[in-house]
C-alpha cells in the first residue's frame, strides 16, 4: 500500500496552479499575472510532494528547469517574444533524449550508456515555444508494456487510485498529467502506449499519424509502428503542443515530408458536416460494461448512430503483435545475447520468443498490413471519424495478472491494447478522450483518416465543450 501522507501535507498557500492547463499558464505568464519561475517552482514542489506516491518521475531536472524559467521571465521583462507555451512545465517519457542524462527507456541496461548529448527535437521545439522541461517519466521497460509497471523503477501509480495501474507503456506520462504535476507530457505509442494510459488515467492523449512527428533522438521499439505524441488535460493543449512539434525531420527516416498543418485554428469549428460512426464487431466484443457505457455516452453526445465494421481487426491486431515481437527482438538482439539477465524477465522472454519467429511470417504480416490499410481507408469515404473503446476496462489493480474478456480469462498485460493495436497498426491519428465515470475514468478513441488529426481534435474539443469528455481532477491530488 503506498504512503498517502504526501497528499495530505498542505502545499504553499498561494494560487493553485496544479490544475491549470498549459494554455492558461502560458496566458497568465504572457500577461504578467504570474512568472514562469513561480509556475515552475510550484510544479517542482508538486512533483517532489506527489512523486513518492505516484512514482511518475524517474528524473527531475530542477536546475535546468529553473534556469529555463528565469530565461523565459527575462524574455518577458525585455518584451521579447517568448512563445505560446511560455512558462509551461512539461515532462517526457524517459525514452526521449534529454541532454545530460541517460535515455533509460525504462531499462536497467541503458543506465550504463552515456548521457544524451542533445535533446529530442520535440523537446527542442516545445522549449523554443517557451515551455520548460522539468523531468523524465517512468515507463514500461523498452516500451513493451501496457500496464505502467516496471521492475526496476516500480510501477507508476494511477492518481485516481494509487493501488491501480496507470496503463503503459507511457505510465509516468499519464500519472504526471492526471496527478496535476504537469499540464503537458510527451509519450510514445507503438501499439497503444499513449491511448491506454490516457484512458486509465482519465486524460486526453493524441497519437498522431505515423510519420507526422519526428522520432529522432528517442529510443526506438518497433520502427514500423512507433509514434510520439502529447498528453494533456484539455484538447486545446493537445492541439497547441502538436502544432508546435510538427515539421519534417531528415533525422527520422519515417518522418513524412509534409507541410505543417495546424490543427488549433480548426478546433472550434464544431461537429457540423462531420460524419461520425461507431466501430462495431471486434471493438465491442469482450469489453467490460464501463467501456461500452463510455462508448455509448460519447456516441450519443456526437449523434453517432451508424455502426461500421472495421474489417479483419482481429487479424490486424495479430499482425501488429507479430511485427512488434520480431522487430523488437531485432532491436535488442545483441542485448539479449550479452545482457539477458539485466532485462525485466517478462520483456526478455517475449523478445527471446520474437527472435525465433521465421521471417516469412513477418513478411506475411507486413503484406497483410498493406491490404488492411486499403480496406480501412475505404471506410473513410463514408465517414470522417470512427469511435471505439480505448481500453476494454478501467484501471486494473497493480499486479493484476488476468482479467475475463468475453468469458475468457486472459493476461492483462498484452490485452489492455486489444482495441488500440488494430488502429496504430496502420498509423491512423487518434485522440483518446476521457469519460469521467465513477469510480474510475475510461477513454474512448476518436479515429480519423491519415493526416486528419484536425478532425479527431475537433470532435474531442466539441465533446469537451459540452462536458461529455473531461479530465476529472482526482480527489487525492487536490491541494489543501
Amino acid at each position, binding site marked *: 500500500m503506498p504512503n498517502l501522507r504526501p497528499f495530505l501535507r498542505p502545499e504553499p498557500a498561494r494560487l493553485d496552479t496544479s490544475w491549470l492547463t498549459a494554455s492558461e499558464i502560458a496566458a497568465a505568464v504572457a500577461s504578467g499575472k504570474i512568472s514562469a519561475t513561480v509556475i515552475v517552482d510550484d510544479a517542482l514542489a508538486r512533483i517532489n510532494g506527489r512523486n513518492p506516491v505516484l512514482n511518475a518521475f524517474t528524473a527531475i531536472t530542477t536546475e535546468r528547469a529553473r534556469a529555463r524559467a528565469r530565461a523565459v521571465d527575462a524574455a518577458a521583462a525585455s518584451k521579447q517574444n517568448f512563445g505560446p507555451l511560455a512558462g509551461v512545465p512539461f515532462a517526457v517519457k524517459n525514452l526521449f533524449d534529454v541532454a545530460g542524462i541517460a535515455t533509460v527507456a525504462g531499462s536497467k541496461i541503458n543506465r550504463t550508456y552515456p548521457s544524451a548529448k542533445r535533446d529530442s527535437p520535440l523537446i527542442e521545439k516545445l522549449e523554443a515555444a517557451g515551455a520548460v522541461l522539468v523531468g523524465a517519466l517512468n515507463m514500461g521497460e523498452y516500451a513493451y508494456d501496457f500496464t505502467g509497471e516496471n521492475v526496476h523503477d516500480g510501477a507508476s501509480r494511477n492518481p485516481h487510485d494509487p493501488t491501480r495501474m496507470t496503463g503503459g507503456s507511457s505510465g509516468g506520462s499519464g500519472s504526471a498529467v492526471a496527478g496535476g504535476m504537469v499540464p503537458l507530457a510527451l509519450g510514445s505509442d507503438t501499439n497503444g502506449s499513449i491511448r491506454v494510459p490516457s484512458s486509465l488515467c482519465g486524460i486526453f492523449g493524441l497519437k498522431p499519424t505515423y510519420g507526422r512527428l519526428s522520432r529522432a533522438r528517442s529510443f526506438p521499439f518497433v520502427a*514500423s509502428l512507433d509514434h510520439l505524441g502529447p498528453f494533456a488535460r484539455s484538447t486545446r493543449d493537445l492541439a497547441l503542443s502538436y502544432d508546435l512539434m510538427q515539421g519534417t525531420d531528415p533525422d527520422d527516416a519515417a518522418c513524412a515530408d509534409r507541410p505543417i498543418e495546424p490543427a488549433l485554428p480548426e478546433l472550434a469549428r464544431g461537429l457540423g458536416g462531420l460524419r461520425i460512426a461507431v466501430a462495431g464487431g471486434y471493438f465491442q466484443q469482450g469489453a467490460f460494461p464501463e467501456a461500452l457505457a463510455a462508448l455509448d455516452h460519447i456516441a450519443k453526445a456526437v449523434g453517432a448512430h451508424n455502426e461500421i465494421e472495421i474489417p*479483419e481487426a*482481429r*487479424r490486424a*491486431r*495479430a*499482425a501488429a*503483435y*507479430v511485427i512488434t*515481437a520480431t522487430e523488437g527482438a531485432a532491436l535488442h*538482439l545483441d542485448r*539479449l*545475447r550479452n545482457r*539477458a539477465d539485466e532485462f525485466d*524477465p*517478462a520483456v*526478455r*522472454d*517475449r523478445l*527471446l*520468443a*520474437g*527472435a*525465433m*519467429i521465421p521471417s516469412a*511470417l*513477418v*513478411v*506475411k*504480416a*507486413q*503484406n*497483410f*498490413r*498493406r*491490404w488492411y*490499410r486499403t480496406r480501412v481507408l475505404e471506410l473513410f469515404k463514408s465517414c470522417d471519424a470512427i469511435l471505439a473503446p480505448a481500453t476494454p476496462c478501467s484501471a486494473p489493480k497493480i499486479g493484476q495478472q488476468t482479467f475475463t474478456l468475453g468469458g475468457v480469462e486472459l493476461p492483462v498485460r*498484452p490485452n489492455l491494447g486489444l482495441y488500440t493495436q488494430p488502429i496504430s497498426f496502420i498509423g491512423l491519428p487518434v485522440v483518446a478522450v476521457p469519460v469521467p465515470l465513477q469510480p474510475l475514468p475510461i477513454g474512448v478513441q476518436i479515429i480519423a483518416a491519415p493526416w486528419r488529426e484536425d478532425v479527431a481534435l475537433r470532435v474531442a474539443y466539441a465533446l469537451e465543450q459540452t462536458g461529455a469528455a473531461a479530465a476529472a481532477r482526482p480527489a487525492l491530488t487536490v491541494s489543501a
Partner: protein
Amino acid sequence: MANPDPLDDFIAASARTLGLPMKTHWLPAVRTNLDVTLKHAALVAEFELPDDAEPAPIFTA
C-alpha cells in the same frame, strides 16, 4: 530420450543457432510467448493475399 515436443526442440535449436542464452527456468515463459506469437502469425498467414501483394514498407531509392 528425445524431447517429443517440436516447439521445445525448435527453441533449443533456435537459441543455439542465434547465440541466444536460454536458462532452463526461462523456458516455460519463452515457450508460452512463442506459442502465442506463432498463433497470431498463423492467423495472419492463413489469410489469402494475392502473390503480388506488397509489404507495407516499400523502400524508396
